[in-house]
C-alpha cells in the first residue's frame, strides 16, 4: 500500500473507503435516545429501550455495532428476539398489546441501527473529502506506453491517404536486381541520370556480373507490379526502405524510406496526378494546402515534375521561416507521367494506357511535419527523441 492509504483502510470496488475507527467518529444524526409513549412500559420491562439505544450509541465501530446487533436483534439469542418469543408466556389478555409493543420496540431498534450505520458511512465519506483528500497535483502512477516510430507513423498516414483514394499497398524486395532498379526504369548504365542515385552494390557475382544492389528507390517494385498485372488498371503504392551510397548530414541519410504511387489505366491524366497529390497534401498537412508543379526530370516519367506545397508553417509570409527558407513553398516530392516506353514494355498499349508515378521521402515528410532539424535522429533510436512522437 502506498503512503496515502492508512493501514485500516481497505479496498472496496471503486475506491478507498475507511473502516470505522473510534477516533474518527462523532454522532451527528438526530437523537437516538427517546422515550416513546407508544411503548407500554407496563408490558415491556422499563428501561429496556433506553438500555438498547444507549448501548448502540456507545458502539463506536463496525465490530461493536455488529455485536450490538447480535446482542439485541440476533435471530438466535437476541434479547429482543427473546422478548418477542416470550409473547406466548404473556397472559392471553395482554398478549396482543405485548406483541405490538415488542414489535414496535424492534422496529425502533432496527431503525436506530440503520441510522447509526448511515451516520458512520456519511462520516467516513466526509473524512475522505477532508482529512483524506488527495494532493491531486501529485503525479500519477507511471504506466507503460509504447509509441510507433515517427517514420512508421508518417508512413501509415501517407499510406492511409492513398488507400482512401483507391490505392492498395504492394511491397517488394529491398535487395534488388540492377535490371529492375535501373534498366527497367530507363536508367541505363552510362547514363548521367545514374548520378541521381548513388548505389550500394551487393558483393555477389552471378555469372561473373555484379547485378544485385540495395534498391535506391522503390521504383523497381512498380516494375514488378506491372510485370504481374496482365492488364491495367493499376493503382498501387509501393512503400519501403531504400539505400543510397551517400555521406550523412542533417538532411541526408543513407537508409531512407520511400513511398511511390503508380496509377496506370485508360484516361489517367496529369491533372489526376495533381488531384491525388492535392488530396494527399491536404490529408497530411491540412485542408487549406495549395500545391504547384515545377518542371523536373526523372528518366522513367515524361513529363516529369516536382511538387511543392505552400508553407504550412508561415503560410507564405515568413521571410525568415525555417521550414520554407522564406520562399513560401516547400518541395515535397517528384512525380510525372509514366514514360510510354515503360508502359509498352509492361505489355500495355501506351497509346491507350497512360499512367502517373510519384515518389515521396517519408523521412522528409516527418521532418517537415514535426519541425525536426536533423534526419539522423530517426535511426539513432534515442528514446529521448522517439518518445516525443
Amino acid at each position, binding site marked *: 500500500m502506498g503512503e496515502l492509504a492508512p493501514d485500516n483502510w481497505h479496498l472496496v470496488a471503486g475506491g478507498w473507503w475507511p473502516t470505522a475507527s473510534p477516533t474518527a467518529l462523532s454522532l451527528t444524526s438526530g437523537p437516538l435516545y427517546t422515550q416513546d409513549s407508544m411503548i407500554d412500559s407496563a408490558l415491556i420491562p422499563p428501561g429496556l429501550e433506553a438500555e438498547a439505544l444507549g448501548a448502540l450509541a456507545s458502539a463506536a465501530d463496525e465490530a461493536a455495532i455488529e455485536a450490538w446487533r447480535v446482542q439485541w436483534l440476533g435471530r438466535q439469542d437476541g434479547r429482543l428476539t427473546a422478548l418477542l418469543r416470550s409473547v406466548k408466556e404473556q397472559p392471553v389478555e395482554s398478549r396482543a398489546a405485548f406483541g405490538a409493543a415488542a414489535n414496535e420496540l424492534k422496529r425502533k431498534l432496527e431503525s436506530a441501527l440503520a441510522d447509526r450505520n448511515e451516520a458512520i458511512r456519511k462520516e467516513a465519506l466526509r473524512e475522505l473529502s477532508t482529512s483524506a483528500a488527495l494532493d491531486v497535483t501529485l503525479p500519477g502512477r507511471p*504506466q507503460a506506453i509504447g509509441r510507433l516510430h515517427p517514420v512508421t507513423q508518417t508512413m501509415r498516414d501517407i499510406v492511409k491517404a492513398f488507400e482512401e483514394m483507391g490505392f492498395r499497398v504492394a511491397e517488394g524486395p529491398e535487395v534488388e536486381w540492377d535490371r529492375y532498379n535501373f534498366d527497367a526504369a530507363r536508367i541505363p548504365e*552510362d547514363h*548521367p541520370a545514374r548520378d541521381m542515385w548513388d548505389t550500394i552494390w551487393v558483393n555477389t557475382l552471378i555469372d561473373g556480373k555484379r547485378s544485385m544492389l540495395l534498391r535506391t528507390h522503390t521504383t523497381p517494385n512498380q516494375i514488378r507490379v506491372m510485370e504481374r498485372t496482365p492488364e491495367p488498371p493499376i493503382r498501387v503504392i509501393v512503400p519501403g526502405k531504400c539505400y543510397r551510397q*551517400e555521406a550523412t548530414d542533417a538532411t541526408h541519410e543513407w537508409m531512407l524510406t520511400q513511398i511511390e504511387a503508380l496509377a496506370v489505366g485508360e484516361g489517367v491524366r496529369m*491533372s489526376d496526378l495533381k*488531384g491525388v497529390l492535392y488530396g494527399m497534401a491536404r490529408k497530411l498537412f491540412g485542408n487549406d494546402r495549395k500545391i504547384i508543379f515545377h*518542371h523536373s526530370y526523372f528518366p522513367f516519367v515524361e513529363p516529369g515534375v516536382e511538387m511543392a506545397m505552400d508553407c504550412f508553417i508561415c503560410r507564405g509570409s515568413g521571410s525568415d521561416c525555417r521550414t520554407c527558407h522564406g520562399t513560401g513553398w516547400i518541395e515535397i516530392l517528384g512525380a510525372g507521367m509514366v514514360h510510354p516506353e515503360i508502359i509498352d514494355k509492361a505489355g500495355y498499349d501506351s497509346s491507350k494506357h497512360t499512367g502517373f508515378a510519384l515518389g515521396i521521402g517519408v523521412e522528409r515528410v516527418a521532418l517537415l511535419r514535426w519541425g525536426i532539424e536533423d534526419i539522423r535522429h530517426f535511426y539513432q533510436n534515442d528514446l529521448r527523441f522517439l518518445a516525443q512522437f
Partner: protein
Amino acid sequence: MKLSLNWLRDYVDVDLPVPELARLLIDATAEVESWETIGAGWDPERIRVAEVVAIAPHPDADRLRLATVETGAGRQQVVCGAPNLEVGQKVAFATEGAELIDGHTGKPSKLKLRPIRGVESAGMVLSEKELGLSDAHEGILVLPATAKVGRPLVEELGDVVFDISTWANRADLLGVLGFGRELSAITGAALREPARDHRESETKAADMVSVTIEDPDLCLRFTASVIEDVTVGPSPAWMQERLLRLGMRPINNVVDITNYVMLETGQPLHAFDYDQVRDKRIVARRAKPGERLTTLDGIDRELDPEMLVICDGGGPVGIGGIMGGGKSEVSEKTKTVLLEVANFKRGSIRRSSGILKLRTEASLRFEKGIGPAMAEYAQHRALHLFEQLSGGRVTKGLVDIYPGETPRGTILVTAARIEQVLGIAIPANDVRRILTGLGYGVQDVPPATFSVQPPGWRPDLEIPDDVIEDLGRIYGYDKLPTTMLEGRLPDPEPNPLRDLRERVRDLAVGLGFQEIITYTLTELPKLARAVDPSDALRLAPLGVVNPVASQYAYLRTSMRPALLETYAANRRHQDGPLRLFEIGFEYLPVEADLPHERTVLCALIGGTREARWSGTAGERLDFFDAKGAVEAVFDALGVREAYSATSHFGLLEGHTADVVAGKEHVGVVAQVHPDLAASFEIDEPVFLVELWLEEMVRVLPERPEYAAPSRFPEVRQDIALLLDAATPAARVLEVVRSHRSGGVRLSGDIFDEYRGEGIPEGQKSLAVRLRYQAEDRTLTDADVAKVQAGLLKRLGNEAGATLRGG
C-alpha cells in the same frame, strides 16, 4: 551550373526582379538553388567609372603616383600606388564615404580621404579586393574599354550569378545561350543569337588538315577549322571577367575563346597548336591496348580500348570529349590554331571518364548528350571571336566529318494526345507559339495534329510526350485542372503477412513497447557475437561492395545485435524499464538469387518496473514480463500457443522457451545470456522476444473463434496441486483445458507456484483457478464435484499431481 544575368541579357531582355526570374526558371526550366548579387554594396553615387587621363610622379614617394582621372563630372587628382595604372584605362573610382572592403584588413569600412605623403587625394582608384570581387589587391581593377565614364559601377559591373542544377538530359542548359532560349520562350521576348559571322581567307582548311573517324559509333561528328597568324595574348577584360564569374580561370585568348564558347553554347571545343600536329592529320579511333597518354593535367594515363582517342600522325593527342594531351597544347608561341569541335557518344564518354576517374567540363557536357548540330554552330561562333580577338585569319571552310548525321526527325503530336497526357487542351496558337519559341519547326497537319522538328540542340526530344512536356512546362502546370482518377478499381491483392505485421506492431505498442528502426546493415563481429556458430547461413551474410562505413558492410541476418546496441545506448542515459521492439527483415542469403527477406519482430525488455506509487518499487522486469507480452499478442490474434523449455545460443539455459503454435515454431522468449549482454555492454538481466511472422501467419485464424457468452453462471474454484518439481506447469494446464465432461467446459489458470516449507523436497505446489461452465444449465454442487473428480483423476495419471491437503 552558374548563370550570369548580365551575360544572359546578351541574348534576351530580362527586366524581372531576380526572385521572379528565379521562380520562372524553377517552374519551367531548371532548379535555381541560389543566387549571388555582385555589387550589391556599391553605392551608385560614390563608386563610378572613371578614365585615367594623366599620370605624374609623386613628389615625395617613389612607389606612389599622382593620377588625374576624368570622372564625368570633372577631373580629379588621386594618389595611387598600383603598378598597373596606365593612361587611358577605365577604372572604378570611389569618393569620400563609399562603403568598401579595406585592402589590408579585409573588413568593410567607409572611405575617409586624407593627404598621402603631403598630397591631397580626391578619391580612390579601386582594386578587386576593395570591391569585394576577389582577393586581388596587387593592382587596380581595369574595366573594359567600353565602360562609360561617370556611370555608377554597379550598372557597369554589377551582376547576379545564379547557381542552377540542370537536368541529366539537358546539355543545352550547360550554356548561357540555353537559358536565353528558354526565357525567350517563357516570356515571349525576342532571342538575340550570338554573332557567328567571320571572313575566310583563300587557304582551304581541308588543304591544311585531314580528319578521319575510324570508329563512327563513338565519334558522331568531327569538325575542324584552322586559324592562321594568331597572336596569343591575354583575352579582353570583359571576356576574362565573364569566365571568372562562371568559375573558369582565364589563360590566353585562344584557350579563353574555346572556354567562353563552351560556357555560352554548351558545346566543348579544343584548340591545338597546328604546328605541333604531326602529319597534319587527325584520326578519331579507339585506343589500342596498352596505349598511354599524358593529359593536360600532367597525369600519365593508361587508355582503355573502349575509349575514343584523338590522334595525330604520331599517336594519341587527346581523349575525345574528356581532355587533351599536353603535347599539342596552345602556347605563347602558337601561330596557327587547329580548332576541334566534335560530337561523341554520350554513354562512351561517361564510361571512359568513370574509368579514368576524370570528370571535366567537357565530359560533363558530352555525357548528357549534345546535339551534333551544335558542333558547326560553335565553330562559327568561335571563329567569329578568333577574328575579333586574336588577329587571326580564318581559313576557308570547315573540315566536317559527320558519319552520325541523321535526317532531322519529325514528331507528330496530336491535340488528343496532349489532352490525354496533361488533362487539358492547349489552344493551337499557344502550341505553335511555345514550340516556335523553343526553336522547333512546326507545321499544322489538319485535323488537330502538329508535325514538329525538334531543335538541333535538343537531342532529348524523341517522342510526342517529350514535346508535350515542353508544352506543359512553358504553358504552365498551374493551368492544369485538379481532377480525380476515374474508372474501374483494380482487383485487390491480399497480403496477410503485411496485415499481421501491422497488427503485431500495434499490439507491441499497446503493450508498452517503443518501436525503433535500426540500420539493416551491420558488421561481421557483431553478428558473430549474437549468432549460433553452427548457423552457417546466418554467419555468411551478404556483403556490400561499397559500404558507407565499415560498420555497415553486411546485410544483417539477425536483428539481435542492433536491438542490444540500442538497449545499451539508451540505458546509458535512462533508468527504469526499457521495452524496445523492431519489426524488420533478416536478410538470409539464397544461392544465386535475391536473399530471403524474413520478417521478424525482435524485442528486448529489462530494468526496474515503473515504480513511484506502486508497492513493487525497484522490482525488475523478468522473464514472465516478456512472456506475458507474447501471451497477450497471441491472445489478441486468437492463436493458441504453447511454450517449452529449450536452449539456444546466446540465451540463458533454464530461462529460454520456444513458442509453438500448431505445427509451427513461431518464436522464442528468453533471458539474453549475460555473456552476450555483456558483450554489448549491458550489465543487467535483459529479456528477448523474437516472433517469426512468416511462421505465425500460417497459424493465424481467419477470424476469431466465437461462442456466445453463456446465460448460465460459471463456477469458480481454486485448488492447490502437489506435483513433481520438474513437471512443467504447462502439462497441468493442458489437462485442465482439454477436459470435457457431461457438457461442462473447463478452463483454468495457474496463479501461483510455491516450493519450500510445507512442501516435500523435490515437489512443488501449483495454485490453479478452475472455471466450470455449462452451456445449458446452472451447475449444481454435484455437477462440479463430478467433473472435479474426473479431472483430478486425469491430473494424477497424466501429471502426477495430487490435491494438496486433499
